[in-house]
């Protein structure tokens, strides 16, 4: 991705906010402040993007970490894409499978991308970690997480015995 494309994406985001600011109650003082900020931000960013384009369109940022993210060997790029997909899918899976199952699967899938040595042992270790964490959530931290049958089973064991 070049500078121009990245700038365009941020500019589109600001433009969307700018258009949305027109929907703020007409004549309200609440609209003026964000419109000024968004307008000034948009114009400044547009000026910076045009200046960058004039100097050399599409040059990647001089940031080694980001350059690596945007390039690199193909298998690594695929694994990275899968890594992103796993963690984006994880919260969605949590509402379907519950916290314990979704977390164990997400951690396992993510770990398999880096190394496939002893996968079943890894799965077991991650299951132990997740169950311990789930117990801590229920007994110490009190964070209610989406629950399915494995979580209900933990609840039953915790509160029945």
């Amino acid at each position, binding site marked *: 991705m070049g500078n121009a494309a990245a700038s365009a994406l*941020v500019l589109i985001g600001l433009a969307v*906010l700018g258009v949305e600011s027109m929907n703020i109650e007409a004549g309200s003082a609440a609209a003026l*402040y964000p419109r000024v900020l968004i307008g000034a931000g948009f114009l400044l960013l547009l000026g910076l993007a045009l200046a960058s384009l004039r100097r050399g369109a599409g040059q990647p940022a001089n*940031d080694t970490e980001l350059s690596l*993210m945007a390039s690199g060997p193909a298998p*690594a790029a695929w694994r990275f894409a899968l890594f992103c997909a796993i963690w984006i899918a994880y919260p969605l899976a949590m509402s379907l499978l519950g916290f314990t199952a979704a977390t164990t699967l997400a951690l396992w899938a993510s770990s398999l991308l880096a190394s496939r040595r002893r996968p079943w042992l890894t799965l077991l270790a991650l299951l132990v970690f997740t169950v311990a964490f789930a117990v801590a959530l229920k007994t110490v931290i009190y964070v209610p997480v989406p629950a399915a049958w494995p979580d209900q089973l933990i609840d039953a064991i915790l509160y029945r015995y």
Partner: protein
Amino acid sequence: MIDPQMLAALPHALAPASLLCAALGIVVGIVFGAIPGLTATLAIALFVPVTFAMQPEHGLIMLGGIYAGAIFGGSISAILINVPGTPASIVTGWEGYAMARRGEAPYALGLAAVSSGVGGAVSAVAMLFLTPVLARLALSLGPPEFVALLAFSLAIVIVMLDTPLLRNLTGCLIGLALATIGLDPVTGVPRFTFGSPDLASGLDLVSVLIGFFCMTQALILAREAFAGDRRPDIRFEGVSGMWRIVGTAATRFWTYVRSTSIGIFLGIMPAIGPESTPFMAHAIEKRFSRKPEEFGYGSSDGLIAAETSISANVGGSMIPLLSLGIPGSGAAAMFIGALTLHGMQPGPLLFVDNGVAIYTFLIAFVATNVFMVLIGLFAIRYFAVVLRVPKSWIATFVSFFSVFGAYAVNNRLFDVGIMFLAAALALLLRFIRIPILPVVLGMILGGLLEENLVVFDITVKTPADLLARPIAVGLFALTAAVLAGAVYRRARTRQAAGRSALNFE
């Protein structure tokens, strides 16, 4: 003159049970602080009910330990893997991670522990003696002074970063614009909510910061790991440099004085929590430093300034809480719950009705910070475990804790989506070389700035109204001078660079 109740509280504060509560609180706080997304506020909120069964002073001491420990804990992951455990540790990660990459992780962790302890201990002494005086001063500041102070804070960050001023300003405007999402603070009119009730209260700051700093770092670590770079590229060479840590700390007297003063002062200001304090302290220290070029690249002065100011802010935020019942930060607000739970009413009568208990807490807070230095220095060798973990595992668990942290703040998956969007925005901004720090400060201070601007607009109608507020005028003048100075200095640097290029030609 020393209050007799203070002397009566001294043996209670130094009793083994009090010290045990402090140590326990510190350990719990460090664990919470080191996990991205679990903030000091969350830790205190979770442990307030636990203190119910304890003596009031012991409960408060434990919560004070959690607060101090969480603030230091946030720096551990920031230094070792560049993932700030709490939003306050962003600047610490900036300097500390660069030091760690040079093989100075123990040194950076030790300096962070000592600086955290010094800032906290001095602020605790300030709490003991300056509470009534400083609280009265803070009360005299109105919206004009707040607008001036916030404008000054933003200007300082804009001029102090090495990136071009216009890019810093753009970042700041983006942050301020993002802070307007949600209901208007004055009229209650919905803005940029796109019909979603989840956006009515605005973007959750913790989720956004997790996206900006934790999730992006997890992605960077993952990409490096998949490209074959397996372990963190920092070395951990034992803790032989203890004297170096003590030596450095001992020779930075004025850095500690400046950072502690900034931390305490900003802590007293309502709603300016420890998140924005290190930016200000770091920027001001850069101005005074003999090696300003090292700031941002592993400067020990920068690390000391950031870490000291954060801990000093912790004590500072308790001053208006104890004397007036006004919390200076979110975590301090949790103490209101703890005090109320133990039948104490924060405010001017607190020292009259519960003097010994409160003085016990305050004196023990000094001891808590001394304890934290010792625990921090002792535990450095165990933090090294992180460095033996492959990057792919760190990326995996940072991703998990980022998602969980974003979810746990309000127990809703919506904030996880916000966290992912924030991570995407941070990566895009890095790609077009817009620094993220002005965006963050704009987001943190945006709501407060808008609220005060509205009142400023109503109360200050003519220049004479403004001239009647000398503190505000002074701060505005200082802001203008800082901006003008930065523009002038950069123009001269550019001119000089142009001349030297011509000479080479």
